[in-house]
């Protein structure tokens, strides 16, 4: 099948990527790509910022087309170290920016709910947050990533294998969807409607972002680690 022409090529203007899909903007800080890139093309911008161009383009594709799945041979050029730094930067973005932002809005809604609904809403959110922390911090960052880093350093261990990877993001997304339903459908209508509409946009965006994030893990990270595991020592 001939490869269809996309703006996702090395010699396309970097700025064109962002007009093609504005969600790609949020990727820049995670890659450490600064603004002010002028009219440079994708490859130049990546080089200046010490970013692996192949990985950058692949992740852009996953963000703007959910059906996209990189071929095996394309994955050979991926630098695992870069991929891990990207995933860690995404985690930081969720934990240090997105969640606190949503919490701030939510706290105002919780306060407005008063004694009747406030505590349960706050309880619901706390449970959810714990689940997120457990998956991202205590599982991925403390079990999976160190395992991969050890593999990269040539250390093999039998205590963990990547096919045990917990696809826990579905849970995290389901609960986010539940939160949307509660905020829009089931909380009494007169409690801070404007705030609730605003927070819904943030939640939808986060839910979509988390969805792409798990696609990156499924379609890039896991196959790459599998081939590392199968490589001859």
């Amino acid at each position, binding site marked *: 099948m001939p490869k269809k022409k996309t703006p996702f090529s090395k010699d396309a203007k970097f700025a064109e990527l962002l007009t093609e899909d504005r969600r790609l903007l949020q990727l820049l800080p995670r890659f450490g790509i600064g603004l002010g890139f002028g009219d440079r093309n994708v490859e130049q911008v990546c080089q200046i910022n010490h970013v692996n161009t192949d990985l950058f383009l692949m992740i852009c594709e996953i963000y703007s087309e959910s059906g996209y799945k990189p071929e095996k041979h394309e994955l050979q050029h991926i630098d695992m170290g870069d991929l891990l730094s990207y995933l860690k930067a995404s985690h930081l973005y969720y934990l240090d920016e997105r969640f606190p932002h949503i919490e701030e809005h939510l706290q105002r809604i919780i306060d407005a709910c008063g004694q009747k*609904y406030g*505590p*349960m*809403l706050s*309880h*619901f959110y706390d*449970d*959810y947050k714990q689940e997120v922390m457990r998956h991202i911090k205590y599982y991925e960052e403390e079990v999976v990533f160190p395992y991969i880093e050890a593999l990269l350093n040539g250390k093999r261990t039998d205590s963990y294998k990547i096919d045990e990877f917990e696809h826990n993001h579905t*849970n995290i997304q*389901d*609960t986010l*969807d*539940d*939160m949307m*339903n*509660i905020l829009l*459908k*089931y*909380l009494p209508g007169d409690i801070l409607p404007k705030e609730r509409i605003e927070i819904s946009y943030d939640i939808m965006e986060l839910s979509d972002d988390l969805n792409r994030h798990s696609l990156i893990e499924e379609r890039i990270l896991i196959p790459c680690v599998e081939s590392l595991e199968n490589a001859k020592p």
Partner: protein
Amino acid sequence: MSNRVIICETSEIIANGLADIIDGMAQFDVVARIDSPEHLSERILSTDANVLVINPALLGYQNKEFLSDLGKEHPNLIAVALLTSCLDHSCLTPYIGVIEINDTRSKIISKMNEFAQSETTKNADDVELSKRETDVLVAVAKGMMNKEIADQMNISIHTVISHRKNITRKTGIKSVSGLTVYALLNNLIDEKDLI
């Protein structure tokens, strides 16, 4: 959306012949063929079937009771009678319609389409939680496990799971903590009920 059909009939010739006709229709897939109504409910659950074509002779005089129990466990299920012999017509009232042994292929096709149509309308109206579903929801919200709920309500674990599927379909809420909030907001439980 495609309809998933279970055929329950003792005669292999008849069951396979009917399956062939139904499988040829774009909107229908035959997901199971069984020769007795035993374990029917479990099969419906495991195959996620929404249409049951069954020979009423297999149920004798218990058609009404059997189908009404089945309907409680699988509210989206439509039951079609497959008539192969003369039968007391009172047996046929619980069915949405009847396919007769002498029906032609085209007649069966048009009947099946008509039955499936009436199912979609039924689905659209069906948004309120039933009494049974509300009971299950309350139990889930209180933190009970499926097994405990089944024991307390005297129903099978499969039935509990099927109720929970319907609760999620109707409310849009999937997580246990989300269902708890839903139950509190709708005054189905009290904060005091929670551990």
